[in-house]
């Protein structure tokens, strides 16, 4: 028995070795910095999003043009990324040569000295046109005067609506009778609430909301806060969340949830809201602007509703900015090859190709290119995205941005659930944010 057991250990060990040998591409193998012609493998951690599919496709061209550089991707869902990235940084040699960085981490990672300074690379790459990136997205690339990230794609929030409902004659008539004005795309929170409640009374949820605890609810509500002119932290670093503007924005948000959102949707996140829209059970949602193409895809989950969705700026006009950045691990053995890849992928010419295939734009020139309009999703989509991107601000900045986003979300979610009053929640957020900033 014993002998047999050990036998089995040996066999299984052999099998495992074999497998790890086959899968060895996942870890960079080069021990010394390679000479110019030596083959280099770049391992990249990415999130599984539509943009990644496009990048993977484009990368084939890069590898044909640069046969000595092999690019491999480790794609995973968002929630698994942060600890993976961290563990890669902690290792003496990077698991990932290139990582993508979410905007809340764009101050934290450089401050922890995880990322390579790209300032010189950017300066020395001819025709790169760094100034072309829209300003709010570009601003986040820089920490302490050093560029550490290159914009990948944006996920600024917009309002996605069922255009057919807004154009419906019967709906228009009913709305006019009820509200005494035309049924239009809401431009203020008051209008949004009124329109939402109107749809709810007419058999379709007014807004598919995402009040799930954590960053989700904050990502949605902060657009409401902007609409009232409020903010969490002002330009001078003061915590200004406990304000009349915030109070009004939160009260209206809760009223919308109680009177116009799908019932019992307190734990809904992005996916539930999207499904609700796709299945024709909600009339509007505030979500990532790049969801529009997915909803309008006739082979996608919206089925027959595809083509009936349209994108607008959020009520109030100022949106939450989200964006991903390419960055190079400080502990990679191949920084030059990594930059070669990133600068190729994000160059004006290739960026244009990416957006034409459906990627979310970050370069102004790309969004204003009639050829992109034609091959992509049409002029109005790109001009709307450009409009959204010219007036937006991220959830939080600084080294604790991720923690702030998550913790604020706890209080917001508790307020929507009725476990806290609006005043308690705002006071709680104020105290919590101050506590985190003091760390």
């Amino acid at each position: 028995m014993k002998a047999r057991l050990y036998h089995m250990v040996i066999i299984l060990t052999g099998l495992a070795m074999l497998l790890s040998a086959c899968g060895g591409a996942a870890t960079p193998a080069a021990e010394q910095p390679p000479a110019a012609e030596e083959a280099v493998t770049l391992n990249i951690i990415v999130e599984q999003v539509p943009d990644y599919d496009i990048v993977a496709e484009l990368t084939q061209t890069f590898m044909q043009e640069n046969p000595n550089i092999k690019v491999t991707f480790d794609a995973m869902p968002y929630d698994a990324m942060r600890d993976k990235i961290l563990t890669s940084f902690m290792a003496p040699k990077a698991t990932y040569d290139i990582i993508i960085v979410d905007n809340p981490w764009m101050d934290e990672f450089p401050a922890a000295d995880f990322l390579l300074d790209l300032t010189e690379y950017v300066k020395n790459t001819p025709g790169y046109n760094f100034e072309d990136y829209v300003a709010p997205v570009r601003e986040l690339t820089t920490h302490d005067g050093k560029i550490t990230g290159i914009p990948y794609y944006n996920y600024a929030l917009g309002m996605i609506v069922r255009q057919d409902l807004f154009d419906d004659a019967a709906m228009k008539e009913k709305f006019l009778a009820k509200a005494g004005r035309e049924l239009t795309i809401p431009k203020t929170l008051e209008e949004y609430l009124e329109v939402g409640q109107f749809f709810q009374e007419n058999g379709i949820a007014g807004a598919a909301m995402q009040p799930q605890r954590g960053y989700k609810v904050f990502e949605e509500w902060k657009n409401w806060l902007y609409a009232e002119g409020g903010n969490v932290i002002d330009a001078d670093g003061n915590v200004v969340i406990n304000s009349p503007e915030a109070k009004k924005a939160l009260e209206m948000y809760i009223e919308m949830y109680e009177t116009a959102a799908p019932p019992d949707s307190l734990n809904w996140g992005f996916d539930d809201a999207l499904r609700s829209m796709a299945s024709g059970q909600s009339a509007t949602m505030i979500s990532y602007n790049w969801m529009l193409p997915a909803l309008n895809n006739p082979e996608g989950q919206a089925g027959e509703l595809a083509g009936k969705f349209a994108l607008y700026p959020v009520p109030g006009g100022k949106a939450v900015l989200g964006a991903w950045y390419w960055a190079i691990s400080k502990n990679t053995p191949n920084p030059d090859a990594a930059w070669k890849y990133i600068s190729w992928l994000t160059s004006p010419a290739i960026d244009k190709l990416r957006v034409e295939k459906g990627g979310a734009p970050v370069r102004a020139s790309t969004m204003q290119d009639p050829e992109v309009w034609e091959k992509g999703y049409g002029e109005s989509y790109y001009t709307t995205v450009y409009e959204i991107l010219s007036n937006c601000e991220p959830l939080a900045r600084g080294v604790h941005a991720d923690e702030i986003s998550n913790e604020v979300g706890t209080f917001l979610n508790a307020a929507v659930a009725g476990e806290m009053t609006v005043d308690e929640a705002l006071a709680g957020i104020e105290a919590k944010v101050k506590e985190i900033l003091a760390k």
Partner: protein
Amino acid sequence: MKHTLRKFVTRLATFLILVLGLLVVFFPYFWTFLTSIKDPAAINRPLDFSFTPTAMHWQAVIRAGIPRQALNSFLVGMITVTIALAAGAPAAYAFSRFNVGGAPTRFAVLLAEMLPPSVLIVPLFLLLYHTQVLLGTIWAAVISHLTFILPLVTWFLIGFFDEVPRDLEEQARVDGCSPWQAFVKVVVPTIVPGMAAAGLFGFVLSWNDLFYALILTTGSQRTLPVGVAGYWTFRGVEMGQMSAAILLAILPMILLSFFVQRYLLKGLGGGAITGI
């Protein structure tokens, strides 16, 4: 007559209760299966049964490497359990026969299983990366799984060894066996059912772990639970594909459970849980 009637009613009630339990257990499987053969638009109409079945999700999942992840999970489970049995059996024997450390040690072994993974993960990670060769291979998962499977298997086996009559080894010793030979040739064969039960149980725990695997396995070394969780992304949840992946993850275990259930029962009853 009255007695038979009562018996019949009791049996009928028992049967109905069990059928109800069966429905509760199987409904989620059934629904997940339905979801896996609906097209994306039909998934959003839960009570609509007039859809045309599609194999698209199953094909996509198989292309996406779920079989490879299943193989990873299988190997991780087998290696973990093999090591746990090889190291745990002698230790359990020592605890049982020679009462090393007394009752508190037995209890400590059990408590070791309960350690929150959060307390071990950071040091384990550091340990793995200093070894260099282990990180990024399935051995990282094996090592982390041993932290809870080895104590559990050992604790299970203590009970089984308690049940083995001492005469057996004494007879073997009289026949000229060394203590080690007596253990391997005489004692171990009598607790094979127990080892099987403990091993199977350990295998199931390893197969199902998400916490360690999520942090410690990457790329092609990913295990099945990590793969299943991977369908829940910001491109929207691909419910059809995820349902197919879930079914692929649970089917082998359900089939396994049919075959091993009797063994497990016999093994457990043999002493593991009576030995506390």
